[in-house]
């Protein structure tokens, strides 16, 4: 179609924080697919074929916390509560919180255009990442 390249080189674009977060949003999406596939494979390994329906398996793979399979026919919750799955779930939760809170900042920037307002949004976002990460990890490792 057109020979002229539509994208600028990295040097022309500049590598700033916004650019890095743009990249982080994409790469964290791929990372979350990785966590999801790990949970999916693990679920079938542990007998999901017989004891869970499609929606149950999706909910488990989305965050591999054993509380997500409590309502299914899984006979023994023990293998679902081992440290490995808590580790996978922690990775998912931390990645998702960073990805999600940055997404909220992007949305807020579409409506809040004053410099001070944007600074306040960033302050709130850091608070949200710190508190939600703590709460998420606390739930995953103490229950």
């Amino acid at each position, binding site marked *: 179609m057109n020979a002229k390249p539509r994208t600028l080189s990295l040097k022309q674009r500049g590598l700033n924080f916004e650019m890095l977060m743009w990249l982080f949003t994409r790469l964290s*999406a791929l990372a979350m*697919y990785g966590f999801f596939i790990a949970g999916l494979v693990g679920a079938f390994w542990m007998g999901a074929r017989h004891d869970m329906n499609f929606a149950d398996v999706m909910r488990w793979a989305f965050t591999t916390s054993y509380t997500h399979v409590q309502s299914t026919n899984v006979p023994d919750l023990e293998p679902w509560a081992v440290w490995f799955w808590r580790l996978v779930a922690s990775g998912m939760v931390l990645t998702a919180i960073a990805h999600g809170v940055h997404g909220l900042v992007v949305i807020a920037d579409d409506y809040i255009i004053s410099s001070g307002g944007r600074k306040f949004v960033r302050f709130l976002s850091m608070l949200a990442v710190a508190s939600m990460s703590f709460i998420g990890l606390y739930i995953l490792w103490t229950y």
Partner: protein
Amino acid sequence: MGISRNVSLATALRYKGQGPMLTFILHRIGGMGMAIFISMHLLASFFGGSVGNFINDIYMSWVFQIIIFFFVMFHAINGLRITILDLWPPLLEYQREAIWVEWAVFIPLYGFAVYSILSAAFGG
């Protein structure tokens, strides 16, 4: 810093961006929905008690599952399309085709999820 728009809300609502606009707005709604519901879910599990259990009981109802599954699965599948196209920019030429592929993946998967949620809820 700062942007100014000379577009009224009425004009904005009449904007016909078609497929790409629809995926953009669903991605945004789904993302915000997930942020709210997952935060509430974490807080409910953290604090527990009657309020926490009440919130988590709502989350387990089939109506809520159908809504949250739409948000999560659409956001995930649309996000994968965005990621693939953005990391390999030559593919952006085929954005509209990619959106059709996306719906072809999303509709059967989501349909199957809704089917299994409903059959679990009504013992079918």
